[in-house]
């Protein structure tokens, strides 16, 4: 039987999942629930690949690390398989440790842009209906945790949400304006209107 391959892409990162559907469980032929191989391809970086038992801990590592980074905690994640540490506010060092004793750990340096690409690829995998894997606990916890404090923190939200949302919208709006604004064109237009 031919194996199914599914790819998830985000800018410079792609995640490839290879595996089979569980036909005994009435799954469709294009689904994957028995993963045989996965590859995380980052442009200009070494290929990261491994067995199914490595995928879950790696996804968790990236989720936990990105949460720590954004929620003003110390951005440091350490486990038997992977360490992620912030070098500064822009750069992060990833150390991937092999289970084989003769293989040296692989160190990869990534920036915020690649970090968000990787996390977005994992989000796509977690949200995909075609890949049936045990969803990351961190991903599920985020969704569960969000529901409970909402009601208790309404007053807090009322106070802090509008400034945050306005900052975000300012960031988005300012970049949109920069993107569409071309001073050279305007200058040329002005020259055409009043050629002196």
């Amino acid at each position: 039987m031919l194996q199914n391959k599914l790819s998830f892409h985000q800018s410079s990162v792609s995640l490839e999942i290879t595996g089979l559907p569980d036909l005994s469980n009435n799954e469709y032929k294009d689904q994957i629930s028995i993963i045989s191989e996965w590859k995380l391809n980052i442009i200009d970086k070494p290929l990261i690949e491994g067995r199914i038992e490595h995928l879950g801990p790696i996804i968790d590592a990236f989720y936990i690390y990105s949460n720590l980074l954004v929620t003003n905690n110390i951005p440091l994640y350490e486990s038997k398989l992977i360490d992620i540490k912030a070098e500064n506010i822009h750069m992060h060092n990833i150390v991937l440790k092999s289970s084989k004793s003769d293989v040296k750990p692989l160190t990869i340096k990534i920036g915020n842009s690649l970090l968000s690409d990787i996390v977005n690829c994992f989000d796509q995998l977690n949200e995909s209906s075609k890949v049936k894997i045990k969803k990351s606990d961190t991903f599920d916890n985020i969704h569960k945790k969000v529901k409970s404090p909402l009601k208790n923190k309404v007053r807090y939200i009322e106070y802090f949400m509008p400034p945050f949302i306005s900052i975000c919208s300012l960031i988005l709006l300012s970049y949109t304006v920069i993107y569409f604004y071309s001073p050279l064109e305007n200058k040329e237009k002005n020259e055409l209107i009043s050629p002196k």
Partner: protein
Amino acid sequence: MPNKITIWKLRNNNPLRKSHINNDIKLEEFDALIKITVEMSKYLYPYIRQILKSKEEPQKNSVIWNDFYKRFTELIKERFNINSIRVKKLLNQSDNYEIIIKSLLMLSLCISNEGYKKLKYFLFYS
């Protein structure tokens, strides 16, 4: 959100704005604002990514960051109450750098279909 005016009114709940009016924001309205923010982040992800990348290699792309930063501070001066201490902090170059980078990173991490749940989580716990 029945129309754009509702969004405009909700925006004025922000105490940092010059045109601040305290309309009690409802939970559903808050959720809607979060979803709008996530949808805009999705659309603008390539540009947000570019700004973040520009600080990773400052020698190569500092123009992108400078343009963005200039426009960002211009908009704050134009629309926010610059007498407020919090706004002054947002305009202070030594204080605002980390806030801007983390806000951009937060937006870039929440562009998936269920990204609004993640953005809510980040907002509650940050």
